């Protein structure tokens, strides 16, 4: 018999970006362990709808950990205390019977709350638009031996590319800095020959955009990498700093 748990869900409710928010408690009973965190919220929302109350707004899309839409700051951790997974991959069996589960939106000036648990993450799109791409068409995938890339470099680029842009790094950072995101996006291209050509321009443009949008200065606490659902390494930030400093010294 699958274990079921009862708990209190303390959820942040906020009417819109300008209203003052508050916490609301909901008693949850008989939730099975194989329910995902988002399914649990669906169950609660269906109940709220039946009771003619306003359902809780939260972001979600693919529910398999690759789209980067789900967020939620659960019990003091972005994407919950489990680590290495997104909120949609978090299961209720990880929580204690009778506990209080606190759910908050990302809190950062760069990500203002839209409603309840949903925040506006278009700032990340704007940073990407500032240079997070290769500006020429590089054609179809080459033969594996046409452009030689050491395995180690390919792996590093792939690890950086695993960033899904969910914003957990900013949510975890006491400085509201988006350096882990920007560094992952810069690294995934700077490491490979197709992206290397524009590396300097890209680093400068993306860092400038990040700052313009009000994100903070990185102080290397490492909270971002520790909370990243895709385990993006802090070393990427060193690489971004290196690219940026090199570019500025060349100017």
């Amino acid at each position, binding site marked *: 018999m699958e274990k079921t748990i009862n708990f209190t869900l303390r959820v942040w409710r906020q009417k819109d970006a300008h209203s003052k928010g508050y916490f609301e408690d909901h008693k949850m009973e008989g939730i099975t362990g194989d329910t995902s965190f988002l399914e649990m919220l669906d169950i609660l929302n269906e109940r709220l709808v039946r009771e003619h109350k306003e359902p809780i707004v939260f972001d979600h899309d693919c529910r398999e950990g690759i789209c980067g839409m789900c967020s939620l700051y659960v019990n003091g951790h972005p994407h919950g205390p489990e680590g290495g997974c997104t909120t949609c991959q978090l299961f209720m069996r990880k929580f204690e019977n009778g506990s209080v589960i606190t759910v908050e939106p990302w809190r950062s000036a760069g990500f203002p709350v839209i409603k309840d648990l949903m925040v506006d993450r278009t700032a990340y799109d704007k940073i990407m638009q500032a240079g997070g791409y290769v500006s020429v068409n590089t054609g179809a995938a080459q033969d594996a031996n046409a452009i030689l890339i050491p395995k180690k470099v390919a792996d590093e680029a792939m690890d950086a590319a695993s960033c899904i842009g969910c914003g957990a790094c900013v949510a975890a950072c006491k400085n509201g800095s988006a350096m882990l995101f920007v560094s992952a996006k810069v690294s995934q291209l700077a490491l490979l020959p197709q992206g290397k050509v524009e590396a300097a321009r890209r680093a400068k443009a993306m860092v400038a955009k990040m700052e313009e949008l009000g994100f903070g*200065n*990185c*102080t290397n606490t490492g909270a971002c990498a520790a909370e990243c659902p895709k385990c993006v390494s802090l070393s990427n930030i060193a690489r971004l700093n290196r690219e940026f400093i090199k570019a500025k010294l060349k100017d």
Partner: protein
Amino acid sequence: MWLSSSTVGRKVVMSISGLFLILFLTFHMSMNLVALFSAEGYNAVCGFLGANWYALVGTLVLAFGMFVHIIYAFWLTIQNRRARGNVRYAVVDKPKGVEWASQNMLVLGIIVIGVACFHLYHFWYNMQLQEILGKETADVAACVLGSANDLSGVSVHDGYSFIVATFSNPVVVVLYLIWFVAIWFHLTHGFWSALHTLGWNNDIWFNRWKTIANIYTTLLCLGFAVVAVAFYIKSL
């Protein structure tokens, strides 16, 4: 200027000024160790660092480095608090692997600088400053907090006597030890973090730098602490 207008540039300034201050502390610690072996030797070093033109230039450069480091620290902190927003999380749980020091660098820095002012009043004020003003003897009656020896009349060139007097007071010794602990926490993060900001880091060097930072900082702080404790024991 990218060193003030860009986020990475500001951090580069913090890193370079921080590394410079670590270098200064290393010199200072080495100099203190001389006092354990030879009073004449220590006073010779003090004489070398008196009101000579090179010592004064050194003092000004050092003061500038400290000033920049402190101003940037407050500037960055204000910006970061603004970026964090006004609403705080209700539940906060420190993620695994995040150093306590890394999240409290400003507080640690304020402790360090606070005690440093007290320290300057004990030594620099009585020595280099009086020498610059053309006086031959210290004019402060005692080492503050009472119990130390009367220092008025001690020559400004006699650094050794200042050490003996200062560290005969247990309250001062304890305060200095707290100071070294704060410096230890500040530097264990600051050392590797500075190199990380300068881009000199990767997955392999990450743990190496952290280990080097811990060992270096521990030796540095022990070097300072040994002198303070040794002179207290001597005074008993």
